[in-house]
């Protein structure tokens, strides 16, 4: 055989599959290096990771990293994608010519369950027996030759985290004949076998399925609940009628249809393991056990959990500020440079106030996203994430959510954008959506400047109960309001709109392990790239639109004058200024005047813009020094409404504006990220509407109650 023909018979299209926590991603990284790209499967929010596998002779194959799954029974959207691709019923992805099945050697029995399902599929299979070092430490010895014989497929021992066995695996992949098929190795009780074979025949005739797919469907149908509800549309009525007869027959014989199939597989696995696996010794307490005794301890467990959360929160909230300020300063420097080197005019304004401001709004989020994904990566990779969910599940289940919703919600205190991106660890799509919908109610760091301005200007410097300052308590109330509202809305959504069974909490607690820095860095890089590409463009666009609306129409005969009075007049004259006046009747019931209206509309891109908008409206010179801040406070306090002769701003107004900012979706970046994460405009628009409605109603109630209590003076 010539070299050329050898290359042609090679498989070009390989899929990687395995249980969660089996080291599949590490193996994928080891096999592909950085030759990979991340996207989405069309129509679902499941991530699609593809890479290129280079062989020694220079030829290459496409490697698809399927989502981690325990079986082909498809519970979550992730598992459904993996199942559909393997069964060749995914329109978006070709059926693989070869499947590399990753097996966690330290947890071989349960991992072989998926392997047996994949062998049934009659595609060429190679088993990567991963983490053999962990297995050896646990006293598990595996005879790979015997295992390979038992399974009828090649078995390659690997330690993906150390790059061991990768070349051998590539060799085997390169030499595997793409036409190889395997026969089924396990057996069910005779009567079930007979019924299954008959049904396979039916399915092949009626639905033109190949034998392996028909077998998978036959088992699905035989084990399904009697209603066959989920399968009505997929199969012909005569097939379903046949299935109903089978159900009756097996039920009558007292056979548990659902468990008999799973039990038969596990029975076969037990036999395989008795030949190929020896448990050399069983240490009563391994390292993971010892760690878990402390980490899930009644007292220490909470202390450690709170400690880790505090560090993570501190990092995103405070430490990320350092690079964020550097980036901010960099952009200030750049805009000053442009301002000084370009003639004043619309083009300069567009570049500085539209384009550059937008780019800076996007880039400023990067440090937070990077830090969050560093933490998430560490927590996930070490195995602590599962423990965090284990500890917090009780609390989250009270509002109908899963323990895994806790971390995204906590992250949203820093910023909803990384928070929403962190919901990817939640398997149930409904729970994930609920978590995303309520996360922006948590007070993020962009709200802090708004709170700080209003509290400093309007909340009296008083001490309560001897030790607490009224300012501090007001700030705390705003954070609590967001938290309470987020939990209440989550509860409400789970009860109504996204009603569903309580989330399944059947979760593996994987052994602790050293994190793979390479995987974590790769993930940080991918997340940042996706954020910049997908959300960044939308944020930039909105920024330019808002700039336009705040700058046009121009004042008559105006050559732009760098003068604060002039700027205030221009802002009032602009579309945003007009909109502020137009919405005044709408926001009047909340105690807001048109200036606050301008503030709200102007800060739709990001909340902290409210502060600079107030500065512009109240003619404060463009400077960041302390006297400017104090004079802004003064100006706001002294502002008199010409119609009523009363102060525009009272302590109550300030509280109402803060409440509005706690609850309203004043952040287009979050909308953009929602659009990316949910693959459409439906949910971001719903979120924007419900939050605005919520903000309006709660602020209205607070204002009215405040007036009744005489706080409006």
């Amino acid at each position: 055989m010539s070299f050329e023909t050898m290359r042609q018979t090679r498989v070009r299209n390989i899929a990687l599959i395995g249980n969660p926590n089996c080291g599949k991603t590490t193996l994928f990284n080891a096999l592909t290096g950085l030759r990979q790209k991340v996207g989405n499967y069309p129509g679902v929010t499941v991530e699609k990771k593809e890479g290129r596998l280079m062989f020694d002779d220079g030829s290459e194959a496409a490697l698809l990293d399927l989502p981690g799954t325990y079986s082909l029974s498809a519970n979550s959207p992730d598992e459904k994608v993996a199942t559909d691709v393997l069964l060749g019923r995914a329109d978006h992805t070709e059926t693989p010519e070869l499947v590399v099945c990753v097996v966690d050697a330290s947890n071989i029995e349960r991992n072989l369950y998926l392997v047996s399902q994949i062998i049934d599929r009659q595609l060429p299979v190679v088993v990567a027996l991963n983490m053999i070092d962990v297995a050896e430490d646990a006293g598990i010895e595996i005879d790979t030759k015997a295992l390979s014989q038992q399974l009828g497929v090649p078995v390659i021992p690997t330690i993906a985290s150390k790059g061991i066995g990768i070349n051998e695996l590539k060799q085997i992949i390169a030499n595997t004949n793409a036409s190889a098929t395997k026969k089924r190795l396990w057996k069910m009780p005779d009567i079930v076998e007979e019924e299954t074979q008959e049904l396979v025949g039916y399915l092949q005739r009626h639905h033109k399925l190949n034998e392996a797919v028909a077998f998978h469907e036959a088992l699905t149908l035989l084990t399904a609940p009697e209603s066959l509800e989920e399968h009505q549309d997929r199969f012909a009525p005569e097939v379903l009628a046949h299935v109903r007869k089978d159900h009756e027959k097996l039920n009558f014989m007292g056979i548990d249809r659902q468990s008999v199939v799973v039990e038969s597989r596990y029975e076969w696995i037990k036999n395989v393991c008795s030949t190929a696996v020896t448990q050399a010794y069983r240490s009563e307490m391994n390292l993971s056990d010892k760690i878990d005794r402390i980490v899930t301890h009644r007292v220490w467990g909470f202390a450690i959990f709170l400690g880790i959360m505090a560090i993570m929160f501190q990092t995103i909230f405070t430490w990320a500020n350092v690079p964020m300020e550097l980036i901010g300063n960099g952009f200030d420097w750049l805009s000053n440079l442009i301002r000084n080197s370009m003639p004043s005019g619309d083009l300069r304004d567009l570049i500085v106030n539209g384009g550059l401001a937008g780019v800076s709004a996007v880039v400023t989020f990067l440090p937070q996203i990077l830090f969050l994904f560093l933490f998430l990566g560490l927590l996930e990779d070490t195995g602590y994430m599962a423990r965090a969910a284990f500890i917090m599940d009780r609390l989250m289940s009270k509002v109908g959510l899963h323990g895994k919703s806790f971390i995204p919600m906590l992250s949203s205190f820093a910023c909803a954008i990384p928070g929403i991106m962190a919901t990817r660890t939640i398997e149930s799509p409904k729970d994930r959506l609920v978590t995303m919908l309520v996360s922006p109610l948590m007070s993020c760091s962009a709200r802090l400047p708004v709170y700080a301005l209003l509290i400093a200007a309007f909340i009296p410097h008083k001490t309560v109960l001897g030790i607490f300052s009224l300012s501090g308590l007001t700030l705390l109330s705003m954070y609590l309001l967001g938290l309470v509202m987020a939990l209440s809305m989550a509860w409400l959504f789970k009860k109504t709109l996204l009603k569903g069974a309580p989330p399944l909490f059947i979760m593996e607690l994987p052994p602790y392990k050293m994190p793979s820095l390479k995987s974590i860095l790769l993930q940080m890089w991918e997340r940042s790239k996706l954020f910049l590409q997908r959300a960044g463009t939308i944020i930039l666009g909105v920024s330019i639109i808002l700039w336009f609306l705040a700058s046009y129409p121009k004042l008559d005969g105006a050559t732009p004058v760098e003068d604060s009075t002039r700027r205030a007049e221009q802002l009032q004259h602009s579309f945003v200024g007009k909109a502020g006046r137009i919405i005044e009747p709408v926001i009047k019931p909340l105690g807001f005047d048109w200036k606050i209206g301008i503030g709200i509309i102007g800060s739709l891109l990001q909340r902290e813009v409210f502060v600079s908008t107030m500065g512009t409206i109240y003619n404060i010179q463009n400077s960041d020094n302390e006297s400017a801040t104090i004079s802004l406070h003064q100006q706001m306090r002294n502002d008199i409404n010409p119609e009523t002769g009363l102060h525009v701003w009272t302590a109550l107004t300030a509280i109402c504006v803060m409440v509005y900012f706690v609850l309203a979706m004043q952040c287009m970046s979050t909308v953009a990220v929602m659009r990316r994460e949910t693959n459409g405009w439906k949910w971001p628009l719903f979120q924007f509407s419900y939050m605005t409605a919520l903000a309006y109603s709660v602020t209205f109630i607070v204002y009215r109650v405040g007036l009744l209590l005489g706080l409006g003076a």
Partner: protein
Amino acid sequence: MNEVTLNTLTPGERGTIARITTAASNVRQRLLEMGLVKGTSIELVRYAPMGDPIEVKVKGYRLSLRKVEAASVIIHKVAR
């Protein structure tokens, strides 16, 4: 035989799985596929700090599930 539900065990107690009862079809399927099949030995390792969920050892690995799901797992308790 001493039949009890999994959620009634105290940490350190063991049993052999007899069957899984009335849970919803998808819950039942998941529990079976995670290895909770008839004849498998199972040990309750601990309760979460707030009392729910529980952690069990089965087929050599650790699994956590809520008490409400554990209540559908019937086991033959092994005397200590």
